[in-house]
């Protein structure tokens, strides 16, 4: 089992650095994981995205459709890539503590 | 006194040795060839073709107004026979060959028909040569064999007249050998057996040619030997010569090596499931003889697991299960 350590905190992660147990997610976790995406500080827009994705995940057990993320948050896909360079399916999900979507995506 | 005993002994030993070389080895080799080949083909046949997996190399048969490719993607058994005929007789797939070359950081695909030509030339001339050899095994010589010899020596160059198939087979074999040595990719993948087979074939062809145009051989003696072998009344004629012996031993080695080497592709090509099946997978059910039940996640189990979510989303549940 791999570990991701920030200061004195440590998280169990998979090989791509996704949180192993999404239930353990907190806002602090988001801040710590944002570092792995080269985001020094999460701003309001980041949080808007994270919170929506997190809310959807709690409702449906899965990340929302990319298209839905754009629509509900009002961000263009391009903008999301600017905020989270590895994109909605990877970057946002990682910071929001969701498992990585796999398949033909 | 010793000499009196030794000479006949040696002579008879030489006789026995000759018998082994000219009769024993060819018999053994041919028996291994036939037995081995049958064993291989039966071995393949025993493994079923569980799925219909033709590689489709053209448009499928679907809507009546769309032109399909009946030979590259046959949907009928007859079409599959046609595809196989093209494959076996004309090396259809090899004809598609092209060569990827890097040019200014991009690939260009040039025509590359040499391998096809070399392979086709080799196999066809080999067949002609084998059939021509029937003149040595059958008495009287069948008319088609004589005719073949006539056509093969059409240009009447020299005496005995030069067989074109001999020239072609030597050139083709030389090409096949040289490309293995020359092309670095091919040299990388070539194994001992690749060279061994080629060298055996080349040696056989060269000794054959040598006997015809160089060192000569007593054809009548050779034919007596051949007929003797074919009719199970072996004779060991005099005067067949060392070149003939080498030729015969190489052929025997080739025959015995055949079933245990890549040369069995001769039989295998007919059995290839990506080529000899019609692409009618959705028209006709294909049965897998070893199909066995597997563990699935049944609808009932699934509905049970996601009942709340289904209810929440108002997706109809299976009524039958409800009651």
């Amino acid at each position, binding site marked *: 089992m791999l570990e991701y350590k920030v200061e004195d905190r440590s998280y169990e992660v*998979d*090989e*791509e650095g996704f949180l192993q147990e999404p239930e353990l997610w907190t806002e602090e976790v988001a801040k710590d994981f944002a570092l792995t995406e080269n985001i020094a500080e999460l701003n309001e827009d980041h949080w808007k995205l994270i919170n929506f994705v997190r809310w959807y995940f709690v409702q*449906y057990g*899965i990340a929302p*459709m*990319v298209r*839905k993320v754009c629509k509900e948050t009002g961000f263009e896909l391009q903008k999301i890539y600017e905020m989270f360079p*590895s994109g909605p399916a990877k970057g946002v999900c990682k910071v929001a503590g969701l498992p990585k*979507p796999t*398949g*033909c*995506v | 006194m010793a000499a009196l005993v030794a000479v006949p002994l040696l002579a008879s030993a030489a006789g026995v040795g000759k018998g082994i070389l000219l009769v024993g080895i060819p018999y053994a080799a041919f028996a291994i060839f036939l037995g081995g080949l049958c064993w291989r083909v039966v071995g*393949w046949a025993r*493994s*079923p073709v569980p*799925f219909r997996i033709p*590689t*489709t*190399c*053209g*448009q*499928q048969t*679907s*809507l009546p107004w*769309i*032109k399909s490719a009946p030979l590259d993607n046959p949907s009928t058994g007859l079409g599959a026979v046609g595809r196989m005929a093209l*494959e076996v007789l004309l090396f259809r797939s*090899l004809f598609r*060959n092209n*060569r*990827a*070359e890097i040019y200014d950081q991009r*690939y260009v695909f040039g025509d590359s028909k040499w391998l096809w030509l070399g392979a086709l030339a080799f196999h066809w001339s080999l067949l002609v040569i084998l059939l021509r050899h029937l003149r040595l095994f059958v008495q009287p010589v069948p008319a088609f064999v004589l005719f073949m010899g006539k056509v093969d020596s059409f240009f009447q160059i020299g005496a005995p007249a030069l067989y074109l198939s001999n020239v072609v087979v030597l050139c083709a074999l030389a090409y096949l050998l040289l*490309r293995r040595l020359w092309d670095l990719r091919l040299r*990388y*993948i070539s194994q001992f057996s*690749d060279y061994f087979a080629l060298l055996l074939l080349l040696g056989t062809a060269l000794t054959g040619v040598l006997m015809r145009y160089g060192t000569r051989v007593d054809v009548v003696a050779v034919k007596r030997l051949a007929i003797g072998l074919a009719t199970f009344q072996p004779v060991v004629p005099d005067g067949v010569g060392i070149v003939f012996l080498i030729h015969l031993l190489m052929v025997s080695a080739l025959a015995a090596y055949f079933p245990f080497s*890549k040369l069995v*592709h001769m039989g*295998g*090509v007919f059995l*290839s499931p*990506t*080529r000899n099946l019609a692409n009618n997978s*959705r*028209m*006709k*059910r*294909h049965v*897998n003889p070893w199909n066995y039940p597997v*563990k699935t*996640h*049944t*609808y009932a189990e699934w509905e049970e697991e*996601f009942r709340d*979510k289904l209810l929440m*989303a108002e*997706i*109809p549940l299976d009524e039958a299960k409800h009651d």
Partner: protein
Amino acid sequence: MTDNRHKIEQVPPRSDWRDPAVEFRKGTYCHSAGAKYVEALGLPNPRDWNPADADWKLPSDWKEIILNGMAERLERFRSFKLFMDVCVRCGACADKCHYYLGSNDPKNMPMVRAELIRSVYRRYFTPAGRVFGSLAGGRELTEEVIKEWFYYFYQCSECRRCSVFCPFGIDTAEITMIGRELLNLLGCNINWITKPAADCFRVGNHLGIQPHAFKDSLEFAADELEEVTGIRVDIPIGKKGAEVLFVMPSADFFATPHYYTLLGYMSLFHEIGLDFTYSAYASEGGNFGLFTSHEMMKRLNAKIYDEARRLGVKWILGGECGHMWRVLHQYMETMNGPADFLEAPVSPVTGTRFENARSTSMVHICEFTADLLYHDKITLDPKRNDKWSVTYHDSCNPARGMGLLEEPRYVLKRACNNFHEMPENTIREQTFCCGSGSGLGTDENLEMRLRGGFPRANAVRHVREKHGVNLLSCICAIDKATMPTLLEYWVPGVEVAGVHELLGNALVMTGEKERTTNLRGEPLQAAVPETSPAEVVHG
């Protein structure tokens, strides 16, 4: 990104292929499957391990397992047995593999890939190999060989291109499939395949989208479609007695640009008034079982017929997906048939009986739509696609495992005004893989994906320069997922779309409002008309 592009060179191979040593270099291999997914599918030897580690935690009797596994498969698959025996190493396949062309790694030449397992076959299963060993091309089975297999059998996308050129039809896909089955016996799976397979098994689709999320996604799509067209389409899920069950890859209701293809299907079905239903249980057409084992393929595929039977539909319609169609066309009925509870498919609009699918009762959406267009049952306005200069990428599986070549082209040529083919040796049965097929489309494998996709991108670059192509259309979900990255890297400025997205754009729907945007919500015309670079290049 353009500065650090890989240089593609042809360097003659030097090493000896018999040496099994492999360096697991980052970017060229996939992560191992998480133990919980391996366990969820009931596959052997679930454990945490890493391909880059020295110790793979193989079971102690691993050698016996592999040899027994080989023996069993030699008896079950003539393809495997025959392909082990008949290769003459003529070399015709060498430069046909996109991974070899892109990586220059000689072990990616198809006959060498096969030789990796063939050498073990010779050593343990043939008389010549048992007696003469390496002289007869045999190789000892060691742990290093297992590692080598793992590296190279997950560097083959089972695209079958080599098989087109092989004089004996040797299909490396068959060998890779068996190779992966053997590796899976030891628990050497990759996560990008095993996790989707596990999700598909339990939840119904690769992404693990549960029924309520499935419905939410489809309803959201209907909302979006309404915004574009002014028409509200129905979302029938699990509707008993519908005429047709519609199955698509789950990426169509999750990822972009797949999603716009879904909008295309939705508009089409509404416009022709098709009596159909989606299914939340069989909510995946794709089948990562194909990349796992024949058994897993059957386990995952069973849902489609089971659901069709439960819902009492007459026949099944399948969406745009590559390997999904390999399974549906060549495996489904053999594995889970007979489909005697279904009828031979008949288009309710044109009355066309799909004779080619009369037994399996499953029709490809492109066949279905081409038939509608041929009979002029729908009206298209191709001008709506005028901002695109379109080319078509034949997805490997429908091209070489089915022969579906003309149908999508027929649809495209009716739906778009600007359509240009890529060079002859790179399309139809000779099409090049996207480089990410067969479950290899994962990020940690990016370098290999970009290398493997190079020949395809290369052909796209050709038509981009010659005809100003800015859209690559395709009918495969993996293409849609991975081609945008590939093209951004090699041919920036070319986007990716499904055939039915373009159809949906062009489709004139009864009662629709005047369209100002395409299905992507973008203006119908490009802001600045693009000049074709053809004028520069070809004068």
